[in-house]
């Protein structure tokens, strides 16, 4: 087995808001091997994007990393805001990593690209910042990248502005810019949500091909179970800021343990199903992150909720090297119960 490229342990992020503290990411731990594709699935507000922004050091001003350690490529890149000097050093270090060793692909191709700069300028910017090369060399690299992502007549297109490209083409440019410095890790945050189905298929295929060629690892953040089923080696399911279940793609789809994972799988219509079995929705709505219940966050919607679920957060149950779940139903060890009813 290859080494872990990324290791995140006990990451916790909070936001100070007028309505109280939002606990967006709660005790999240996972790891990623080289060349692996990890899918992070969750609904809006489950903390999947905030976890990534924490990793990149791109939190909004009111965000605070309370706890956690991030190891990337054997370097410790845990956010450190303890004093002014540490903050300065941390930000300086992240600037050399972002766009260089970690590439990012965002959801909305129109807001990512600057509308008043030519595509060529935007593509070469990252290359020129992170590598010592002349303008000419950077441009040659940009042409090569445009060819890789399948944009015809790249020399001409580099001198055009973003509005002259369609949505799918813009997403290709963003992929090109994410790949520009041969990153070891690519974070794709809902990369195809804004696209039509047939274009989405093209982009997913392209992403798969290019990451396989370059050997980069990918973290794919999405709410679309169809996309992760096609793309990912492993999947982590997030709910209310926590990873509730993690496993290989097959383990998640065929041996789901957590009631939330099962609920998600039941509530989508798998068009493979023979006849129209009724959909089984998850009742209720996700909890308010400023006012989380004391025990399990999913308890209010869980059909199997027990007394202990209200009192204490569930510990992690491990099935094998890859499959974890956070639910009392799966936990046999009663000695872990520390709260008296």
């Amino acid at each position, binding site marked *: 087995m290859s080494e872990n490229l990324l290791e995140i342990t006990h990451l916790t992020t909070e936001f100070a808001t007028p309505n109280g503290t939002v606990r967006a990411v709660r005790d999240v731990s996972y790891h990623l091997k080289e060349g692996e594709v990890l899918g992070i699935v969750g609904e809006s507000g489950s903390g999947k994007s905030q976890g990534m922004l924490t990793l990149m050091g791109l939190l909004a001003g009111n965000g605070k990393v309370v706890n956690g350690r991030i190891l990337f490529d054997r370097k410790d890149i845990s956010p450190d805001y303890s004093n002014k000097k540490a903050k300065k050093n941390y930000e300086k270090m992240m600037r050399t990593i972002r766009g260089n060793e970690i590439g990012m692909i965002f959801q909305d191709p129109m807001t990512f690209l600057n509308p008043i700069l030519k595509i060529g300028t935007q593509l070469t910017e990252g290359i020129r910042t992170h590598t010592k090369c002349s303008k000419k060399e950077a441009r040659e690299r940009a042409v090569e990248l445009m060819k890789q992502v399948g944009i015809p007549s790249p020399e001409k297109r580099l001198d055009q502005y973003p509005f002259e490209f369609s949505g799918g083409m813009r997403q290709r440019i963003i992929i090109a810019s994410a790949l520009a410095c041969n990153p070891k890790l690519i974070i794709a945050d809902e990369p195809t949500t804004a696209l039509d189905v047939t274009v989405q*298929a093209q982009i997913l295929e392209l992403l798969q091909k290019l990451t396989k060629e370059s050997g980069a690892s990918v973290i794919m953040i999405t709410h679309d179970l169809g996309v992760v089923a096609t793309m990912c080696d492993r999947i982590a399911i997030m709910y209310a800021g926590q990873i509730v279940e993690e496993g290989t793609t097959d383990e998640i789809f065929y041996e789901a343990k957590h009631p939330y994972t099962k609920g998600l799988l039941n509530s989508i219509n798998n068009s493979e199903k023979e006849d129209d079995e009724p*959909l089984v929705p998850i009742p209720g709505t996700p909890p308010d992150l400023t006012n989380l219940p004391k025990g399990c966050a999913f308890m209010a919607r869980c059909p199997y909720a027990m007394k202990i679920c209200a009192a204490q957060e569930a510990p992690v149950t491990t099935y094998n090297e890859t499959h974890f779940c956070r639910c009392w139903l799966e936990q046999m060890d009663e000695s872990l119960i520390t709260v008296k009813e």
Partner: protein
Amino acid sequence: MEEKVLEVKNLCKFFEVNRGFQGAQVVQAVNDISFDIKKGETLGLVGESGCGKSSLGRTILRIYEPTKGQILFQGEDIAGFSRRQMLPYRQKLQMIFQDPYASLNPRFTVGEIIGEPMDIHNILTPSQREKRVQELLETVGLKPDHIRRYPHEFSGGQRQRIGIARTLALNPEFIVCDEPISALDVSIQAQVINLLEKIQKERGISYLFIAHDLGMVKHISHRIGVMYLGHMMEMGMANDVYKKPLHPYSKALLSAEPIPDPKSARARKRILLEGEIPSPIHPPKGCPFNTRCPYAVAECFNQMPAAFRVDGRQVACYLYSPKYLRKRESLNIEPLLSKEA
């Protein structure tokens, strides 16, 4: 099923855009579309953005003025009706909107929102109305005492329920559901779909269900129509179209949909279309799909094919004309969706 509620004949809706130096240009959003919907039936419309599915829904409700064609509602052609003539029909033809945040007035209470249509059409006295609103709230799974609250106090799924209650206030017979679930989280989507199905069973309402989530459309629809650049490419029973799409575009669209099942996702052969949808202002001559179709023949570039009847459904493609029968067999394009793992 018996009685036809709605019959649309050769409906066209053209928009004039860009009145400028180049003179007026025309977008053919809905082009020569005919179909019918029976009582208690759901017709699903799928297609990518810009294919005219929402324009079609809105034209049927006379939110847009039809350019050409007939809209027969219970045998009466409402396409040419004046505003006053339309008024009684507005009660029977209703709509559910996509965005539950934009479609509810934030300054109205829930009671005012749901009561407004009854106010406009002078149904019931104000005191009776309150009781009716409470009944409607219960029908859609909310509590009667929510009547004094404002929309911002509700989540997305609950707001969509309020929108549905408002739609039901006038006892409509036909509802256009314009992407009613695409703004909702996965676990909430199934709740809304089940609610719509329950209402249909109880009241025998017909739906025109517009969405781009193919899995959900298949689940709720009896029949499905596939649209591309203003044209209806294929229409047939939901299961037939899903299991064995005939039109080359339907095939590509269905194969591009990410299947939330890793085993069949791996086994499936994807058809990747080249390029993107042409601009609706300058659609290609002949069949609009000819720029991306792998099987295009000479006729495709001259004239849009009429709908051919194949196995009880309509397919607008020359491959299904008797003349090309042999070519179709030689291409062997039938088992494109090898879905069995």
